[in-house]
């Protein structure tokens, strides 16, 4: 099968890759670009482990074709921290023990960042609904939501 050449930007850096037209962005990230921080839990948009942003919008990368990345800005978990400093959200997930096995964590961190960019002051209920597409089987979400609310407070400059 002929592969398609795609020019895109991932986490602010220019990236080129070849992919089959039917490949998902998730497979391209993981298998072509070795960016395995984005996880696959279901391949059908039901778990959110593969959450990334495309042109600033939160999506499941398993439901985006790699070829659609042409000319787009992709954001993945690998681009959340700046230099060697954790993002506030990452720091708060650690402090609140908001991860157990950690497989859902990259997706949740990408989603939380998207949430707080859209809504810097969410209620607990708003946070829970926004993140409803990010399944976590270990934590019961309690500590995740606490980490999200604490992140929001710090990012608003209130803590």
């Amino acid at each position: 099968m002929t592969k398609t050449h795609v020019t895109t930007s991932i986490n602010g850096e220019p990236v080129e890759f070849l992919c089959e037209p039917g490949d998902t962005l998730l497979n391209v990230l993981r298998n072509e670009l070795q960016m395995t921080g984005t996880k696959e839990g279901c391949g059908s948009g039901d778990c959110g482990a593969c959450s990334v942003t495309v042109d600033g919008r939160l999506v499941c990368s398993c439901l985006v074709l790699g070829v659609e990345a042409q000319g787009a800005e992709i954001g993945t978990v690998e681009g959340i921290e700046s230099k060697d400093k954790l993002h506030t959200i990452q720091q708060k997930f650690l402090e609140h023990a908001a991860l157990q096995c950690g497989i859902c964590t990259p997706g949740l961190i990408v989603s939380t960042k998207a949430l707080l960019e859209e809504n810097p002051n969410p209620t607990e209920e708003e946070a829970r609904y926004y993140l409803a597409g990010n399944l976590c089987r270990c934590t019961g979400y309690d500590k995740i939501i606490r980490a999200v609310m604490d992140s929001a407070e710090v990012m608003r400059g209130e803590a």
Partner: protein
Amino acid sequence: MVSVVYEAPETVQDAVTLLVNADLKATVMAGGTDLIIQMRDLVTESRLVVDLKKIPGMMQATITEKGLQLGPSMCCAEITSRDDIKALYPGLVESAYLIGSTQIQGRASVGGNLCNSSPAADTIPALFVTGAQCLIIGPDGERTVAVEDFVTGVGQNCLGKGELLRLITIAKPAANTSDAYLRFIPRTEMDIAVAGAGVSVTLDDEGVCTAARVAIGAVAPTALLVPEAAEALIGTKLDESALQAAGQASSAASSPITDRRGTVEYRRHVVGVLTKRAAAIAAQRVRGDKA
């Protein structure tokens, strides 16, 4: 050898030409949230994927004096963030908000939902009650069909070979009109509707319902308009007994199946409850607007 060909034409005409001339199975892609899953489940099938999102207007929505002109591929997240759309068609925006997760809403579109033509699609009953019209473009030119004539069966619609949905138009609602959409799912989010109900009502100054539309979803092969339910509301002040009667009319009009998401009896019952509740919310919205 399986082959998938991807095209992202920049004009409607190019899209139509691609679809007409396709020698592979041609599929149109908007947000891809249904299509990519189908492609994954059928890896042995070759196909042409025509992505419509690069065509100007497909991802835009404008509100004029006449009403809403909705680009069919605009993602639901964009719609739900638009206060101007919400002010006119709160039920439609509710239905867009209910589709999947935040992530799914970042891709899924009203047009895609309509063209996928699932019996359980949330936006379809919501579109029904707004009286939306679908502008279709194909090799033989343009045509317009009412949304209730667009979907023809389970996963089937009126689009012929080479045709695509270009625009959804919704007239500006009459004064003192509002709508609401409710669906039932076992969890709070993520699930596919077990049943859904959209209701639009117009009230006069006395609070009497002068016009109504009721549509139900996931309880028949396609979404259904239920005129009997609307009639039960018209001429009343939407008191409990009128709401109850509308609910009963919806239940009676439904012809659901039993599957992993619900039984015949359960769906029939719940669609009545949803109709009643959606009518009450729509009425409250009108009253609230006035207050």
